[in-house]
């Protein structure tokens, strides 16, 4: 090593020693911008390609379904509705062509009695999506509160709540849902969603309980207790925000399974009743048309598949965003 480089070396060594002195500076610790955990998670989520594609597709489907018939006083862009018959406008086949692109009179064709099938499928999508999201919100709320209370308080409260959860779990979901669905009168979609929400929260409750059990032993919870913080403040301010990853990911998966549950119920005839419609009901109505008018079966099927897949992909992206260690090597 020549003298020059030795000099340089000692210079840089001195500099690094000075850098050591100022290490307690904040800018040194983490760049210049402040990132909350939420920001970091959002960044990771927006970088997840699959989830972003799914989010776009789902948004498009929901937008299409809700704007086509109009919302409240705003008229929709699709001239036909799902109740009237259109017997005199050509054959029943779908008029949608991708190349050259053409929507035509009845893009998804007509059903057996001449209703516009596009309008029917859109109506079915609206109902299915509403049910799915309402079920998701209700089940998440119930499951989170029950799971958090059971996990945090332990003892007799935990025993009572978790045995109640077990009680709901041991009854076959489809039987319970169909009985309750029948009682709720299939014409009221929101009531049906409420009823479904009341039976599917069990998985969420168990997961949240498990998460809370480990979080309640963390030191920041002890620190909060030592300060004199009340129980519910600890649960809502210290524990649940740290369990948000588990909760959000499971809520999305819950939504996906709610769509399928509604479909199954309607298919069995216990869910949405005519003249209301849903994707499941459409499939059930036209299951025998698979050979003669296959589009009556395929279109609602494709929409169910697309929505369930998208929601699952979003859940996947959220999980990776909340727990980046899983995807790293």
């Amino acid at each position, binding site marked *: 090593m020549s003298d020059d480089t030795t000099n340089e070396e000692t210079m840089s060594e001195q500099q690094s020693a000075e850098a050591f002195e100022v290490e307690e500076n904040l800018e040194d610790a983490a760049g210049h911008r402040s990132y909350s955990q939420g920001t970091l998670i959002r960044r990771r989520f927006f970088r997840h390609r699959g989830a972003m594609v799914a989010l776009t597709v789902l948004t498009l489907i929901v937008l299409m379904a809700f704007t086509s018939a109009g919302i409240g006083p705003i008229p929709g862009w699709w001239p036909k509705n799902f109740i009237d018959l259109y017997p005199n406008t050509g054959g029943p086949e779908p008029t949608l062509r991708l190349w050259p692109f053409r929507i035509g009179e009845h893009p998804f064709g007509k059903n057996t009695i001449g209703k516009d099938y596009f309008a029917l499928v859109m109506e079915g999508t609206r109902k299915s999506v509403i049910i799915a999201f309402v079920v998701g919100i209700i089940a998440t709320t119930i499951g989170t509160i029950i799971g958090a209370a059971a996990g945090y308080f332990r003892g007799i409260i935990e025993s009572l709540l978790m045995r109640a959860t077990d009680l709901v779990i041991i009854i076959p979901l489809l039987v319970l849902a169909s009985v309750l669905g029948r009682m709720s009168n299939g014409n009221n979609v929101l009531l049906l969603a409420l009823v479904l929400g009341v039976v599917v929260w069990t998985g969420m409750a168990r997961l949240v309980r498990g998460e809370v059990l480990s979080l309640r032993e963390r030191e920041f919870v002890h620190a909060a207790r030592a300060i004199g913080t009340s129980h519910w403040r600890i649960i809502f301010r210290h524990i649940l*925000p740290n369990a948000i990853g588990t909760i959000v990911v499971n809520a999305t998966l819950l939504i996906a399974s709610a769509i399928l549950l509604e479909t199954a119920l309607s298919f069995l005839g216990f869910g949405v009743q005519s003249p209301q419609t849903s994707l499941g009901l459409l499939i059930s109505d036209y299951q025998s048309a698979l050979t003669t008018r296959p589009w009556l079966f395929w279109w609602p099927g494709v929409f169910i598949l697309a929505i369930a897949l998208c929601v699952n992909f979003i859940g996947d992206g959220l999980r990776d965003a909340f727990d980046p260690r899983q995807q790293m090597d």
Partner: protein
Amino acid sequence: MTEVKTPETAGTGEPVLQFQNLDINFRTEFGHVHAVKGIDLVVNPGEVVALVGESGSGKSVTATTALGLLPRTARITGETVVADQTISKLTPRGLRAIRGHRVAMVFQEPMTALNPVIRIGEQLTEAMEVHNVAYGRVAWNRAIDLLKAVGIPNAERRASQYPHELSGGMRQRVVIAMALACDPEVIIADEPTTALDVTVQADILDLLRSLKDKLNTGILLITHNMGVVADMADRVAVMFKGKIVESGTAEEVLLHAKHPYTKKLLDAVPHLGSGHGQFGSAPADVAEDAPLALEVSDMAVEYKRAGKKPFRAVDGVSFDIRSGEIVGLVGESGSGKSTVGRALLGLIPSAAGKVSVLGEDLLRLRGKQVKALRRRIGVIFQDPAASLNPRLPVGDVISEPLEVHKIGDKNSRQQKVHELLDAVALPRSAYNRYPHELSGGQRQRVSFARALALSPDLLIADEPTSALDVSVQASVLAMLIELQRDFGFACLFISHDLAVIDSLAHRVVVMQHGKIVEKGTREEVLLNPQQEYTKRLLAAAPVPNPIEQRQRREERHALLEFLGEEVAEIDTRELGQ
């Protein structure tokens, strides 16, 4: 047994481990991190080379390259050579052949390094069978020999036990036996004693030292503890931010440090016996007749066990703290010192005795009264990363106690938080930062600010510096002493580190197995201990001076001999050499 080594070749021959201009870059979410910046290091057979540095200096990353275990996000240039093999040129199969066979690793946490569902003996034989050293019965017998060699009594019985049935020190001996299973040329010991108590640490270090003397193994010792370095190392390399800033023999580096960073690092190490004022100001003296802030008499704490008698973690503990006084509570893991702290905070109930905090009987209070009392007690936990809610920004963390006790309005709370940030020497811009953006020392400062938000009369600090780097520890201790002088609170300082206690406590309480062994003023307990256990603790604590440490080591061995115990060392007869 591929080759038999003799002690005569110690310190000679080809290097067993070399790093040549090693440079490591990690790809992360926020761009590249240059972890290791071109370092050179050589380990010869029969030699202990200590790689010293604080967290984030790149020392563990450097050592991991020797096993080729870095994640795929790492880009490595330069060479790592183990014996005659260059790691970067090996195929995955060749790498596996080297791992455990030519280079072995001793990990920091013996509990996590052992598989809890596999018996000790099987874990030992696994490495031998993988590397075709021995099979079946032969391997099992060798496993038992290895256990005997590292000083585990009843080796036959231990071999068929599971890891949870062994104590921490035993487990670390098993990990060392595993590393020895295939007779490697070099052992990498990554913080091998950090998770252990001082007395156990001293035994493990004795054992490792005998390895290099008797088996001629080269050891790369990674540590942040200067006392361990002084005790073990032949040569030392100091690493800082990915570079080796100073290297030389242990005497050169520890006694005549040249680089400013090394000097600073050494100055920051608390010295047992140097007393108050090591880090600037000393705590103020306390008047003999100062009122009592805490009085504990005959306290017992029990943990309930399903189907068994409750376990008494703390039994018959009595001590007191006068206001404005710092009392150090010392003990090894399992001594019940943290349990005492938690019981005083009311986090776990006491089974018997009388606890009077600030004149109120803690065990009799209910509901609102407990909350009112908690206002007057501050608490600091060991790990600042765990004791701050990761979802709350620093400002909210510090103002939490004010909000809980409904003190002031939004503006006055913010004002108070700013004052507290000033008091703990954090910039006010930290207000909107999140805990994960701060370094360990900064986080612990936030903990202090939170604990002081309500101007407590009593502060309970449970190992507040043991998760921190030594230089950060020094600044945090200095801050604690300053704050104590300003705020005048009484403090119960729980720690396993006698040197830290020595630097700030007025009085010291020593605990073992849930009982108080010895208590008295700092001078009485630390300079003139009466009890055998306290003597052992003091003898086992290493000091960062190789010459003084050698003397202390011999004194400790003499003490052990006097007590009729053996010094831990490898028993080569058991290895059939």
